[in-house]
C-alpha cells in the first residue's frame, strides 16, 4: 500500500483496530474454546454498531459468549433474563414517584448500558420483546413522554432457543430484521469440549477475565470502521445480492433495505478486522448468510424441500455475478 501523509492516520488507526480486536478476541476465546468464527462475527457486529442474535440449543455457551464480550470491554453490562412474565418497563425503566422530592423520578432499566445481554429473548411475551427491539433501532427510550438517550456504543446481544422448543414466542420478522446478524453456536469440537472440561471443571474462567479494552477505544474503533472505503462495484454487489433474495422463487420474503445497510456496515467492520481499508466482495460473501438469512422466509416449496434460508442465501451468493470494474 502506498504510504502518503494523508493516509497515514487511517492506516495507523487500522493497525490499532486490528490490534485491539485481536486482544478482545483472544480474551473471549480464552473462555470459549474453538468458536473463532462466532467470536469474529460478534466483534464484527460490535464494530458495525449492530446487534447480535445468538440462536442455539441451551448449554452451548450463548450466554457465556455474551458475557465474555461484555467482560473483555471495560464497560457497563446489563443482563436481562427474559421470562414470560417480564414487562416492558422491566427493560426500559420506570418513572417512580419519589415521596421525598414529590416528583416522578426515572429509574433506568437494564437497557442503559453499553452492552445488553438479553437471554432467551423468545421466552418473553411479544410486547416485552418489542420494547427492547425499539431501543435497539432508535438508540433511545421514551418513558412518560420523556426521551432518554442510550449509551454509545450500544449493542444488544440476544440469545434465543430454537423456535421449535417449548415455551417460546418466535420473534416476528419485523423484529428479527433489527438484528444485524444471527449466529448459531453449534456444539464444540470434541477436543474443545475436552479442554473445556479441564478449564471449567475447577473454576469459572469468566471470573478471571480482565477487561482488555475501554469504551473509548471501542468508540474509536467504530469510527475507524466508518472510514473503510466501499467502492461502487461493491455497493452494487450488495444491492444485487439483496435484490436476488427478493426475486428468488425459494423465498416468500426477501431482505429489506435495512438489510442492505446492515450488510455493507458489517462488511466494513469485517474488512477492518482483516486489516483492510476497503471492502471486497469476499467480505459480503462471508457475511451474507449471518446477516441476511434470519430475515428471510422460505417459500412453501422450499420448506417442503427442507431448504433453510441459510442454504438458499448460500446458493444465491454463488449465483450473483461478482461485479468487475466500475
Amino acid at each position, binding site marked *: *500500500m*502506498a504510504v502518503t501523509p494523508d493516509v497515514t492516520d487511517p492506516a495507523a488507526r487500522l493497525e490499532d483496530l486490528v490490534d485491539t480486536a485481536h486482544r478482545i478476541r483472544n480474551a473471549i476465546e480464552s473462555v470459549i474454546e474453538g468458536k473463532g468464527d462466532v467470536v469474529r462475527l460478534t466483534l464484527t457486529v460490535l464494530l458495525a454498531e449492530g446487534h447480535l442474535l445468538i440462536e442455539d440449543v441451551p448449554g452451548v455457551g450463548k450466554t457465556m459468549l455474551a458475557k465474555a464480550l461484555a467482560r473483555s470491554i471495560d464497560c457497563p453490562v446489563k443482563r436481562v433474563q427474559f421470562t414470560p412474565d417480564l414487562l416492558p418497563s422491566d427493560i426500559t425503566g420506570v418513572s417512580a414517584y419519589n415521596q421525598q422530592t414529590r416528583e416522578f423520578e426515572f429509574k433506568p432499566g437494564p437497557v442503559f448500558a453499553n452492552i445488553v445481554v438479553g437471554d432467551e429473548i423468545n421466552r418473553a411475551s411479544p410486547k416485552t420483546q418489542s420494547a427492547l427491539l425499539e431501543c435497539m433501532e432508535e438508540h433511545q427510550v421514551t418513558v412518560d413522554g420523556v426521551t432518554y438517550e442510550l449509551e454509545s456504543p450500544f449493542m444488544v446481544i440476544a440469545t434465543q432457543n430454537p423456535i421449535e422448543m417449548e415455551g417460546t414466542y418466535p420473534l416476528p420478522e419485523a423484529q428479527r430484521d433489527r438484528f444485524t446478524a444471527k449466529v448459531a453456536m453449534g456444539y464444540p469440537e470434541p477436543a474443545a469440549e475436552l479442554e473445556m472440561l479441564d478449564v471449567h471443571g475447577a473454576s469459572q474462567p469468566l471470573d478471571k477475565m480482565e477487561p482488555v479494552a475501554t469504551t473509548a477505544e471501542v468508540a474509536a474503533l467504530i469510527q475507524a470502521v466508518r472510514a473503510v*472505503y466501499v*467502492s461502487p*462495484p*461493491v455497493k452494487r454487489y450488495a444491492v*444485487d445480492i439483496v*435484490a*436476488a433474495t427478493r*426475486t*428468488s*422463487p*425459494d423465498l416468500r420474503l426477501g431482505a429489506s433495505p435495512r438489510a442492505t445497510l446492515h450488510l455493507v456496515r458489517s462488511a466494513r467492520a469485517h474488512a477492518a478486522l482483516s486489516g483492510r*481499508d*476497503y*471492502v*471486497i*466482495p*469476499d467480505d459480503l*460473501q462471508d457475511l451474507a448468510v449471518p446477516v441476511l438469512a434470519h430475515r428471510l422466509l422460505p417459500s412453501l416449496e422450499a420448506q417442503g424441500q427442507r431448504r433453510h434460508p441459510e442454504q438458499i442465501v448460500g446458493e*444465491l*451468493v*454463488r*449465483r*450473483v*455475478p*461478482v*461485479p*468487475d*470494474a*466500475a
Partner: protein
Amino acid sequence: MRLPVAAGLATAAVMITLYPLFEGGAWFWSCMGAILVTTLTGVAASRLGARPWVAPAVTPVTVLLYMTAVFAHEEAWLRVVPTKDSLALLAELLGNGFEDIQRYAAPVPPHAGITLLTAGGVALIALLVDVFAVRLRRAALAGLPLLALFTVPAAVITDPIGWPAFVIAAFGYVGLLVVDGRERLSRWGRAVGVRRSSGSARAATPDTERLALSGKRIGVTAIVLAVLVPAALPTLSPDPLFGFGVGNGLGGGGGNIGIPDAIAKLGGQLRQQTNATVLTYTSSDDVPRYLRIYSLDIFDGTKWTLAPLRGRPQDRVSEGPLPPVPGLRPGAPVKRAEMRITMSEDIDELHFLPLPYPAREVEADGDWRADRTSLMVFSTEDQAAGMEYRVVTDEPQPTAEELNAAVTLPESDRYLQLPDGLDPRVAALAQRVTADATTPYEAAVALQRWFTGEGRFTYDLRASGSGAQALSRFLLRDRAGYCEQFAGAMAVMARMLGIPARVSIGYTGGTKIGDEWTVRTHDAHAWPELFFDGIGWLRFEPTPAGAAGQGTAQVPQYSLPVTPTAEPSAGPSQRPSSEEEDSGESAGPARPNPRQLDRDLDGTAVAADPGTPAAVKIGLGVAAALALLLLPAAARLLVRRRRLRRLTRTAAGGHAAWAELRDTLTDLGMAGDPGETPRALGRRITERYALQAQAAESLARVVTSEERLRYAPTPSASGPVADDLHRIRRALAPRASRWRRLGAVFAPMSVLLRVRRAGEGALDVFDRLEGLRPRLWRASGGTRARGTATTARRSGTASAEGAGSAKEPTLTGARR
C-alpha cells in the same frame, strides 16, 4: 384480423423483387394498389365473419373495379363501374401488354399495358396467398404463390436479385408464418361462443407473444444465414456476389459480332449476311495461322466441353514465357513466328485471347493467365475486346520420319475417353477408313483425307449438333455438316483409334487485306487436334476448304505427305456433294445447346484453381474448413497478445492480466461460479491444482492487483507482468486433460462464449426492437385495459422465468 394484413404484406414484400423488370416506379404503385384492394377485401370478409369462399369470390370483383378506376376510368361509369367500353379498353391494354412483353427486354418501359398486366398478376398472387393463408389456414402453402412471384425476376433477369430485396421478401413470408402461428395459438384459449369477445382474446394472448418472439428469432436467424452462408462459400456456385466465374459472354444478345452470337443465335447467324471484322493481325513470316480460343477436351456424348481451367498466379503471361508445350520434346525443331493481334472493339464479352498454338509468349495488358495443360490464355477480370497484344509462337516442324515414329502416348487418358453408347458402327467405320495405316500418324492423315475427299462429305451449314446421335447421322447417313461436325467426328474417331484428340474453337487465319490479315465472323471455326508424343498437339483439318467448304480453312503442311496407300476404304458414298456453300456461315461451335457452353465456362471457378477437379476441390474445401476451424484459435491468440502488450505498457496492467487469467481458466475448464471473487478464485486454483510456490505467487499477484484495482481507493503500485501469466498457464496446463488442452488451443471456450454472448446481444437488440413495436402501438391506439393486461402478463412471465433460471448457474432475471 391480422392474418389478412400479414398476407397482403407478404405479397407486397415479394412484389418488391420485381423492381429490376421495370423502368420507373409507376408499376409499383399500381401493384401496391392491387394488393391493397385485395387485402382490404380480405380484411372486410374476415371482420364480417364471412364464410371462407366469400373473399375469393368477391376479390376479383373489387380488383376489376380497381383496374377500371386506374386504367380505364374515362370509359367507366362514375369512373369506377365497368362498362362495355371500359372492359374493351382493358382488354386492349392487356393485348398491348402481351405484345410489349414480347417486344421489350427487361427493364420494360412503364406502358399502361404492361403495368396492367403486372398489377393483375400481382393481384392474383395476393388473392392466392389470401386463400391459402387466411381462408384455408395453410400459411406455409402460401409460400408457393409467393415463390412463383419471386421466380419471375429470377428467371427473366440474368443478374442476381439484390440481397436486400431477397431479405425483404423473406421477411414478408416469415411474418406471415409468425402471425399465423400466433393466431392459431390464441384460439386455444378462447371460450366457445365468444369468438370475437375482446376480453377472452386478451386473456388468451399471453403465451403467444413470447412464442412469436422465438419464431421471429428463428426466422431472422434463418434469413441471415441464407444470405451470409452462400456469400461466405463462393465455391458452392458461381455466386454472382463475387463474380468469380469466367464469363465469355456467350449469352449476350443483339447484333454484335464474334463467337458468342454465332453460338447463341445460331439459326439467325447462319442466315446473317453481315460479316464483321473480329480481329486483324500481322505476322513476322506473313503466314496465316489458326487462332484458337477454346480447347474442348471432354466429350460426354452430347457435346464437347472443357475441363476446368487452372489459372495460377505464377502462370500469368506477364510473368514470362508460357508453360512448356505439352508433349513437345525439348530441342525439337520449331519455327518461331511473332504475331501482333488487334481485337475489334465491337465483339461481345470475351475473356479468352485468340492465339496461335502453341503460344510461347504473350504480351497483353491485364491479368491474363495461361492454363498449363491446354495453353489457353484467359482472364477473370479483363476482356479481349479492343485489346492489342503480341504473341510469339513456336510451331513444331516435324519431319515425316518423326511423325511416323511418333507414338501417341496420351498425356492423360482423358483425351481418349469416350462416353458409353456410341454407335459401334462408327468405330467400325474408323477402323475401316484407317485399315491401311501402320502408324497413328498415318491413321490421322487417312482420316483427314477421308473427310476432305474420299468420304464425299458435303459442307452444309444446316446441320446441327455434335452429340452421339448427330455423330452417327453425320458419319453414317447424311455426310453433311460444317466444321463443328467435321471436327467433332474426327476427334471422336481418333479417340476410337487410340489417338488422343480434342476439339479447338477459334478462327481460321482469315484473309489478307493490305498488309494485314483480317479475321471475320465467318472465319469462326472448329478443328480437331491430335496428340503425338514428342511433337505435341497437331492441328488437322477435316473440314472441306475453299469455295465448297470453309473458305479460309487450310490443311496443314505436315498432313499432306503422300502416304503409300490411300484407298477409298469408306462405305458407299451416299450422294454427290451438292455444292452448297458460300459465306453464309458463321460456323463456330454449334452445340446442341449453345448456352450450355456459357454455363460450363461460368461454372469453372478459375480463381479457385481447381485443377484435378475432385481431389483439389476437396483439398481446397478441407483447407477452407480448417482455416475456418482455426479462426477461434487465431482470435484467442490475438486477444492474448493484445492484453500482454497492454500489460507491459501500463504499470498496473489494468484489468488485462485478470481478463487473460479468466480466459485461460475458461479455456482449461477451470472457471468457477460467476459469484466467485478474485480472492476466492486464487484460493481455489492454488489449492485444487496444488500450484508450486512460484506459480502461486504469480497468481496471487494477478489476483491482488485486480482486487485492489476494482475495490480499493488506490490501486497497487506494482502489477503482474506477462511472465506471471505465462507461469500460471504453464503450471495449470498439465493439470487439464489432453483434450482440454487441445480444446484450449483450437476451440477456446473463452472465444466461443464471447461469440455466444455477441449473438445473445444481437437477439436482445432484436427483442428490444420487437418490444418497441407493441409499446408504440399501445401508446397510440391500445386501450388502457389491454396495457395493464400486458403488464401483468409481463411480470407473470418474468417470475416464471426466474423460476426456470433458478437452476441455471447465473441469474438472468435481471436481463428482462
